[in-house]
């Protein structure tokens, strides 16, 4: 379970010496139970990306705590947070963020390589996963040889490969056409059901947000819970 308490953050902008503080997150509280899909919807500049960066441990907040199964992420150093991410989190990005020099197979394999998993086991896991997310036949393709939908599937497979309990998705369908968007959302839903993975999805798109069990709406750095529903 992810629990956020009293989270505040502001950015300092302007020239050195004449900086002004712009508050981005104001005393936020958020909860994501195990196996839930949580969406955070908001317009550009509402602070939703900053919230995701803090949840993922990319950024240290000015105040407040982020608890993941009781462990305070904000109390950790950079190296500890990196190790924690590798162990517990998966990431899906809007522009896929695949390594251009690695093949689809190698991109999916990367988190396992970072974890030090033996090559034979990596091969087995990646092959299984590629099959299950519909990525057969593109094993040796480089990212620039794949369609947007295929790249995002590779991105999702990379997030899944370490079997993390939580996956953060930042505008996962932002770069895709509507038909492909639906495919990806269906994939997220099926993975959530099949493996009980918690998804935290950041989006500006209400259609995407609609697949969530728990919805938050973000406006000017403040968060409002939009309700809990059960998707059939």
């Amino acid at each position, binding site marked *: 379970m992810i629990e956020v308490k009293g989270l505040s953050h502001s950015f300092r902008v302007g020239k050195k010496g004449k900086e002004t503080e712009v508050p981005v997150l104001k005393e936020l509280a958020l909860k994501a139970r195990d196996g839930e899909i949580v969406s955070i919807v908001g317009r550009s500049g509402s602070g939703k990306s900053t919230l995701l960066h803090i949840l993922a441990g990319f950024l240290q907040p000015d105040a407040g705590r982020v608890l993941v199964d009781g462990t305070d992420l904000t109390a950790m150093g950079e190296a500890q947070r*990196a190790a924690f991410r590798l162990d517990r989190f998966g990431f899906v990005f809007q522009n896929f*963020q695949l390594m251009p020099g690695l093949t689809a197979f190698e991109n999916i394999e990367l988190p396992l390589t*970072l974890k030090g998993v033996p090559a034979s086991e990596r091969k087995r896991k990646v092959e299984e996963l590629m099959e299950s997310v519909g990525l057969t036949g593109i094993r040796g393709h480089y990212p620039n040889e794949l369609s947007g939908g295929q790249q995002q599937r590779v991105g999702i497979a990379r997030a899944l490969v370490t079997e993390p309990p939580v996956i953060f998705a930042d505008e996962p369908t932002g770069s895709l056409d509507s038909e492909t968007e639906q495919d990806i959302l269906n994939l997220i839903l099926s993975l959530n059901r099949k493996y009980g993975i918690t998804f935290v999805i950041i989006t500006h798109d209400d259609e995407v947000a609609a697949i969530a069990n728990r919805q938050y709406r973000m406006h000017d750095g403040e968060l409002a819970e939009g309700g809990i529903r059960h998707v059939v």
Partner: protein
Amino acid sequence: MSFKDQIAFVRQHIRRNRLRVFMTVLAATMGTAFLIVLASVGFGLQKTIKDDILSNQMVTQIEVYSEEMTDAKADAMKEIDHVEAVVHRKQLVPAAIGELEAYKGHLNTYFTNFKDEQASGFRLAEGRFPEKPGEVIVGSQFAAQLIAESVEVKEGEEPASYDGSVIGQTFTFSFEGENDETASGTWPFTIVGVKEAPGKDWAFDGYLYLDESFMKEIESAYVAASPDLDEQEDMPFTNSSVNVYADDLANVKAITQKLKDDGYAVYSVSEEIEQIDVFFLALKAGLIFVGTIAILIASIGIFNTMTMAVTERTREIGVMKALGAGPKLIQRLFLMESAWIGLVGTVIAVVISYGVSFAANAILPIIVDAALGGETGDSFEVTFSVIPWQLVLIASAISLTVAMISGWRPARKATKTDVIGALRHEL
């Protein structure tokens, strides 16, 4: 991430930037090769000079001087550890005269113990060592001292000297007493051996070598021919030289020191070589220093390449950090890349340096010989370049250290990459 995967990762990056990495490796190679070849000249000249010294004399010989040398003292030296032989030669003071057929000449005469001489490495060009009384050995230029007195010498011409083989010849030996007029008597000596010529071209060896058992006979003849002789002071022999021979070059220094401690004036080749070594150590250090500057220049290339690599891969570093790569791993991956550049550059440089060294030693003497109009002669043997393993080790250490240091800052920069900024970074 396992070490094997780290290497695979680095190799994959290098493959993607082949040309730039190649140019950087080339710069590292040139810098390191320059250092090795430059320093190898110092090693080469040192070798040439050392070899020159060692070829010109008995390297294990230690010359000992003392005003009051006695046989007992010389014998005592035989007891020093690692002393193979002690040769105590005594020279005949009065001028001796040798006559062979119609040829006559003044002789310098040594009395010595042939057993000790043999043990010390005294070699004969021909013949054998004396076995019976009356048998002697002569120096290689002995015959040249015997001049034909009956032949008149025209102006500007050298007098004719004995030019036949002296082996087996018997000549008459005599010398004069103290007042130069009284003859001491004559002895017939048969030449049974000729000493090997000395290594130095200018060294003269026309000596007559007699067994020390003759000394008594010569001495009493001398005393008989010198009525005013003060027997205490005017002995016919001087303790001209004592040479101590070590069993190995490595022990020369220790024996030299022991003899010095015992109060003797001593000279050995180790003294000379030590001075040369000190000089060349300074020279080589200077050359390595100059060579290191070349490597430092190459390091700017490595620094540049690595900084570019980090900048280019900002997004990738961001993704890796986002996925969970720790700062230490990121730093190690970049350090490995600069170390790889340094290592490959060093290996190629070592191979090239040996090639250049070999070529220099093969071609330069020919060029120098040609430039001097072929006047250098057969004895012109100069080693221009020598690369000992120590030099390879020093150069490799410098090259790798410099490569790592130049990769250090870019690697640190990589670890400080901001994940959020990097993920927004466009390729």
